């Protein structure tokens, strides 16, 4: 019985490991970072200087005088203004076929978007959520503010 418990705990551990490694793929890079900018990853708050990797499932946070710009692997570009919280909910992208899905949530603040190859390939493949709306991105440039 003890061995069984042991092995199932090990199995659960392996599952946890494998799921982290799947979600840990780099999907973008911080290209602009002004003032206070952080990446929230798992339960950690990391600094986000120019060149920092952005992973699927990261949340980008700016302070009162912070702003940040990110270029993603499908060439889409997102930038946020002060006091903003942007969650990367999902990004899959096939470099060869350009199929993929890109979902983000603006939980607070302001966001500017120039969509990339994912939205170009399929009009329903990119979405931006705000607290009360869902935007289906057909292309290309737009801005969003999350109300409070």
């Amino acid at each position, binding site marked *: 019985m003890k061995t069984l418990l042991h092995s199932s705990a090990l199995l659960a551990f392996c599952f946890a490991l494998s799921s982290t490694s799947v979600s840990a793929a780099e999907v973008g890079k911080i290209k602009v970072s002004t003032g206070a900018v952080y990446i929230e990853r798992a339960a950690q708050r990391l600094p986000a200087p120019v060149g920092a990797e952005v992973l699927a499932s990261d949340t980008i946070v700016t302070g009162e005088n912070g702003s940040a710009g990110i270029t993603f692997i499908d060439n889409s570009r997102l930038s*946020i203004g002060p006091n903003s919280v942007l969650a990367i909910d999902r990004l899959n992208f096939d470099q060869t076929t350009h199929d993929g899905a890109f979902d983000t949530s603006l939980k607070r603040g302001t966001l*500017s978007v120039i969509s990339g190859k994912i939205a170009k390939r399929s009009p329903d493949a990119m979405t931006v959520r705000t607290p009360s709306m869902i935007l289906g991105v057909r292309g290309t*440039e737009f*801005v969003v503010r999350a*109300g409070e």
Partner: protein
Amino acid sequence: MRVLLSAVIVMLTACATPDVAVLLPGADGKTGAVAVKQKGAEALLDSPYAFAQSRLSGHPRTGHSNASEVQRSFGAALASMPPAPVSFTVYFLSGSDEFTDESKVEVEKLLAEMARRPAPEITVIGHTDRVGTQRMNDDLSLQRAERVRELLAKSGIDAGKITVSARGEREPLIPTADDVPEPRNRRVEVNVR
């Protein structure tokens, strides 16, 4: 009475800062489209500065904004937009990893662009025309791509940020029959993000 009052206050605060989406004209002069959904209602933004604003009723309010309003509300976000990814193509002499004379200018442009970009990420893809065997062309296309990578590395770019691949004669810019020389296919594409 007190309950009513606080309900009104809650409604007013909710109204004070609704969610807003504004479609912008693209840099290429074309304007795209964004479908905005709030609960059951949907609005399509498809003209410059068209906006949708969330409402308590669940039906978004739509209308048109303008450049100065957008600048006022979104200026900081817009100012932090990273530069657009760009592509360069460098052409080579037949059967060799020597650049053509015209391409030397393009290489200079590429190096200048790299120096200007924050945290540049580079993809280098080598190609050949269809003269020679596929095997030879696989080697030659890699040799051409490596040549460009070395050049970038020499100019101070961290080699770890450069991804190199080679496609041989498989992805011609100009499709030709086998063994046909085609200068436009003897190239290396460099994508800079």
